[in-house]
């Protein structure tokens, strides 16, 4: 812990780390100092002047340099003649602060009155109304009436699109600069700026395309008024009408903690997600999320969701069927098949993947006559997930602790496109806290900006490159400085599988694990591998399924669970598809079973850094659709299983007993929270904007293989095959890559990246 500084606020003593500003120190005592421009996640600027307080320091005798004491022996405080901004003043030993005096109250009233001279006060039609810091602080600290002549108010443009995702109301803007600072200091996309001066000062975007950033939605959360709104939520609902459910984003390996806000729609008669917002988890996403996670949710209530089971009729047409008919048919086909292949998508929750794997372990293929194989789609990440788990970062590793002395090695991956919020976190570690970043890649990514060393190789040659530089450090050009890596406090290796096939990706992961071992970092809590998986539960699904053999070309029955339009599925005489939509693949199936999305059920995901996290049901089930685990269980029962799982939690109980690493985890454990610092989800909305409290749990990272007893790290070099044409044709990661889910969000329609396209880093 950093050095503590003692100070007194309103007569109460508090000790806070050196460098803390007064606002945060007061927060520790539960004393709220109102702020507008200050935000604990942003650099202080002291612009709004809302946080003015009285500040004094111990009086020092200039002659003796001794602290002056009065007769009673108390330290005499020299009060500063002017009020000071509590958001920019850092604490010092013996400091005294007064927040409850007449002078301070008057100042707050003055500032609020000034702010309101420009503000339209159109709360009744404002999206922020009901959860607005300006509204709340005016009630709390403002003057009863405004003496400013209403007719003298300046009128500004109220519908300024800053790009297609975010709108600005120039009348409501209080010029706090939070949005600009977020873009500059956190996202590092310098696309917003103040323009003009005085009362004409306004927010503009100057990038082309406008507001070109994957993180733009966060500005609407931290905007202390209703000046910034999303194209998604704007004028859609009032905050107090919303129900909310704690959830986990299902769209990338970060696993951002989110809140799904829903409302009953009279138009459709059903519940809909009205907005997605981050939920504070300092271990995962702090209070941020990316725009994909925020705006992609429309697929959950897309018109073309599968609503009933479908079966092929005598004419070969897919027609609606009852669950009973469909399930019996599936069971019959499975029992009769000589060969079965099960393919499960890596977006499925752990519980569903676990049950699916048990069907294949305990029921199918158990009969002598039957051949059964179980596979994860996509196949490339499944080829190295076990290595990533064995040599992954430790259970207690903390992104926040990464900094000076640590080396981050990024190999063959694009952090911003694959795991946007990790980009924010790793960038902070390098830029703010001085970690050393080394990047090795065949092309440029946004992360390259912060690299102190950039190493290159030809596309598809990542595995060859890694083996070469790690094995023959002396001879490699340009060399990887092994001594620097050995000398690092910790070594975090972030890697992707771009342009690699299964063997290549596995060889790369293995070489990187070897580097950890050879450099002496394997098994350290804050060192390890961090894989840039393509989806939200790649690690979890692979943990459940285990490593697979080669995919057969043809089988009698293929059972596809949530694979979308995957290419890596075998040919089959009979195809079963569980999905949300009638994808091209599902349209060719013989039985199609409608599944529920993550928003309509509960379950757990395991993030790319092996944090197991719960998500809760936000929406009622759609029509006849069922959770995948239910479908799997019903089929299993028809194959003779005695299972009677009542829900995901019950399955999780058996899962933790069976799957290495998950032992000890329970739903209650995953639901535990501890106070997050800085505290941002409390009733005092002004502090963190409208970011929600985390009451649903912080989740827990299970130990890496190296942390488990009986595991011995060992160096092993795998042959790295030359890249295949197929591998070289694999599209590079792109956040907005066209796909079944994103395609159904009208909000993101203008952002889709076609299969062959490479996202531009133009910023």
């Amino acid at each position: 812990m950093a050095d503590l500084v003692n100070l007194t606020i309103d007569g109460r003593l508090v000790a806070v780390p050196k460098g803390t500003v007064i606002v945060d120190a007061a927060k520790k005592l539960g004393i709220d100092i109102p702020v507008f421009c200050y935000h604990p996640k942003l650099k202080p600027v002291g612009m709004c002047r809302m946080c003015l307080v009285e500040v004094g320091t111990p009086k020092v005798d200039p002659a003796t340099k001794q602290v002056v004491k009065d007769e009673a022996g108390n330290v005499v405080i020299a009060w500063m003649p002017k009020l000071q901004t509590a958001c920019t003043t850092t604490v010092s030993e013996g400091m005294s602060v007064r927040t409850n005096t007449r002078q301070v109250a008057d100042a707050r009233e003055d500032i609020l009155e000034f702010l309101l001279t420009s503000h339209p006060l159109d709360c009744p039609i404002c999206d922020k109304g009901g959860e607005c810091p300006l509204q709340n602080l005016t009630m709390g600290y403002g003057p009863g009436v405004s003496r400013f002549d209403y007719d003298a108010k300046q009128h500004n443009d109220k519908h300024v699109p800053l790009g297609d995702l975010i709108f600005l109301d120039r009348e409501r803007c209080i010029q706090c600069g939070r949005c600009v600072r977020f873009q500059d200091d956190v996202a590092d996309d310098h696309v917003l700026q103040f323009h003009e001066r005085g009362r004409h000062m306004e927010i503009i975007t100057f990038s082309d395309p406008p507001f070109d950033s994957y993180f733009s939605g966060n500005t609407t959360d931290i905007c202390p008024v209703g000046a910034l709104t999303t194209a998604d939520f704007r004028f859609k609902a009032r905050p107090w009408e919303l129900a909310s459910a704690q959830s986990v984003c299902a769209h990338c390996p970060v696993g951002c903690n989110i809140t799904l806000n829903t409302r009953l729609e009279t138009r459709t008669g059903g519940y809909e997600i009205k907005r997605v917002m981050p939920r504070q988890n300092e271990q995962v996403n702090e209070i941020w999320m990316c725009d994909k996670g925020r705006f992609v949710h429309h697929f959950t209530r897309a018109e073309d969701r599968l609503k009933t089971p479908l079966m092929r009729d005598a004419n070969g047409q897919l027609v609606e069927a009852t669950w009973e008919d469909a399930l019996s048919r599936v069971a019959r086909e499975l029992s009769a098949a000589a060969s079965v292949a099960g393919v499960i998508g890596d977006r499925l929750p752990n519980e569903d993947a676990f049950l699916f794997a048990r069907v294949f372990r305990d029921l199918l293929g158990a009969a002598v006559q039957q051949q059964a194989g179980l596979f994860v789609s996509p196949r490339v990440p499944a080829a190295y997930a076990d290595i990533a788990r064995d040599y992954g970062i430790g259970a207690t590793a903390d992104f926040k602790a990464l900094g000076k002395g640590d080396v981050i090695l990024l190999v063959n991956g694009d952090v911003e496109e694959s795991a946007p919020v990790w980009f924010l976190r790793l960038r902070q570690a390098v830029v703010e806290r001085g970690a050393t970043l080394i990047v090795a890649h065949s092309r440029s990514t946004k992360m390259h900006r912060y690299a102190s060393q950039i190493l290159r190789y030809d596309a598809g040659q990542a595995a060859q490159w890694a083996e070469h530089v790690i094995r023959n450090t002396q001879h490699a050009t340009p060399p990887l400085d092994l001594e620097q890596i050995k000398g690092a406090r910790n070594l975090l290796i972030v890697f992707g599988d771009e342009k690699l096939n299964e063997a290549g990706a596995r060889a790369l992961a293995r070489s990187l694990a070897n580097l950890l071992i050879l450099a002496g970092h394997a098994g350290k809590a804050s060192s390890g591998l961090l894989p840039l998986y393509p989806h939200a539960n790649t690690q979890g699904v692979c943990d459940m399924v285990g490593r697979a053999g080669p995919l057969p070309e043809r089988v009698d029955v293929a059972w596809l669970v949530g694979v979308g339009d995957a290419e890596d599925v075998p040919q089959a005489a009979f195809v079963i598809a569980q999905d949300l939509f009638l994808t091209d693949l599902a349209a060719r199936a013989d039985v199609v079973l409608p599944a529920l999305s993550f928003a309509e059920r509960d379950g757990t995901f395991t993030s790319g850094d092996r944090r197991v996290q719960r998500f809760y049901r936000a929406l009622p089930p759609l029509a006849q659709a069922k959770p995948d685990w239910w479908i799997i269980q019903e089929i299993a029962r028809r194959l003779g299983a005695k299972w009677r799982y009542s829900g995901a939690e019950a399955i999780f109980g058996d899962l933790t007993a069976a799957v290495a690493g998950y032992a000890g985890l329970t739903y209650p454990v995953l639901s535990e929270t501890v106070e997050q610092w800085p505290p941002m989800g409390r009733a005092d909305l002004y502090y963190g904007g409208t970011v929600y409290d985390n009451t649903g749990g912080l989740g827990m990272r299970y130990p890496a293989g190296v942390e488990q007893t009986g595991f011995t790290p060992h160096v092993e070099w795998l042959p790295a095959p030359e890249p295949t044409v197929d591998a070289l044709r694999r599209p590079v990661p792109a956040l907005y890559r066209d796909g079944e889910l994103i395609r159904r969000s009208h909000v993101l329609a203008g952002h889709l990246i076609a299969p062959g396209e490479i996202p531009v880093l133009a910023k």
Partner: protein
Amino acid sequence: MDKHILLRDLDVPNIRELAVYQANDGYAAWRKALTAMKPEEVVAVVKDSGLRGRGGAGFPAGLKWSFIPKDIFPKYVVVNGDESEAGTFKDHQLLDNNPHQVIEGTALCAYAVQANTAYIYLRGEFLEPSRTLQRAIDDAYAAGLLGQNILGTGYNLDIHIHLGAGAYICGEETALLSSLEGQLGQPRLRPPFPAVQGLYAKPTVINNVETLANVPPIVLNGAQWYRQFGTEKSPGTKIFCVSGRVNRPGNYELPLGQYTIRELIDMAGGTIDNRPVKGILPAGSSAPILPASALDTKLDYESMQAAGSLLGSASFVILDDTVDIVWAARKMVRFFKHESCGKCTPCREGTHWAMKLYDKIVSGQGSLQDVEMLGEVANSMAGKCFCLLGEFATSPILSTLKHFRPEYEAWVSGAKTPAGASFHT
């Protein structure tokens, strides 16, 4: 004082030419410093001279230089030639007529703190002076007085001119730095102070043009010589810009503390038609207005402060009894409203609100409550602004309300009307 120290163009014709400047001790201090003085010695002599900043705040120049850390490179010298304060035109004359002395002062400062780059930031309207200055800089380069390996000493110095884009706030040192960096011209949070993290977050000295013009004679003749002028706490000479209702507006270089405001007005030819003085703005619009009773105040930092105002940039705008004080105050507030950078709430909103009230009052629609409100708005701003501009903006309001309240009352009682008022434009 028989000769000018700064406005030497008044004594030596064509001193703006390098040859003439050099023939009259020009660059002698520069040669002396480079060849015979350590950087610390230059800092020391300026410190001993007691030279105070001429940009407004009066901060001791040598002390400021001594804050520059020795071991961080690069460092910068930035010359503040924004000269935007109402009624200020001293730097203009120096740059136009005695540019080499400004260059030499800049160079001495750079050598003293071991900077190799200096920027001279001029207000955008100084297009002509910037050309004169650039020619002078070019001549100095050609003569080997600037550039690489100056006078064979191995010391390098480049001086660049940058023109602002027309914002009063860019005269404030941190806003100036932002502007110089190509950012929006808004003041920055302090600390860190420019001496620690200034231009491009590197140690930076910022001094006013006039401040630096004092440095060559100080280095050449020594601190004691300099201290023969002025007072103990305000040593040296200062250029007083006199304007307003006087017969001979212009720059007057005088030793600090020797003369009174009354004598200054006399030097400027007295008031037009010998009318009685009503009010004195000692630092343009940025310091409290003084009533005629302050005419015998001595012209130095301490005396002006004791009289309830500030010496600031010493831009004396003289108002006689034909000037309507409410009109004058309104004009100043309009200036601040126009120049408020918008960064902080009280200044951005307060200047706007105050202006609305002035408009109401001078349109004949005002009431006594509006006059009260004016004072309240100014008091609500006072002490709460991010930078001094917002605090300055309260000066014309509060000081005119204090000394000339009946004039406001005349406006709102109907005794004075827009039609009846004679406005100087």
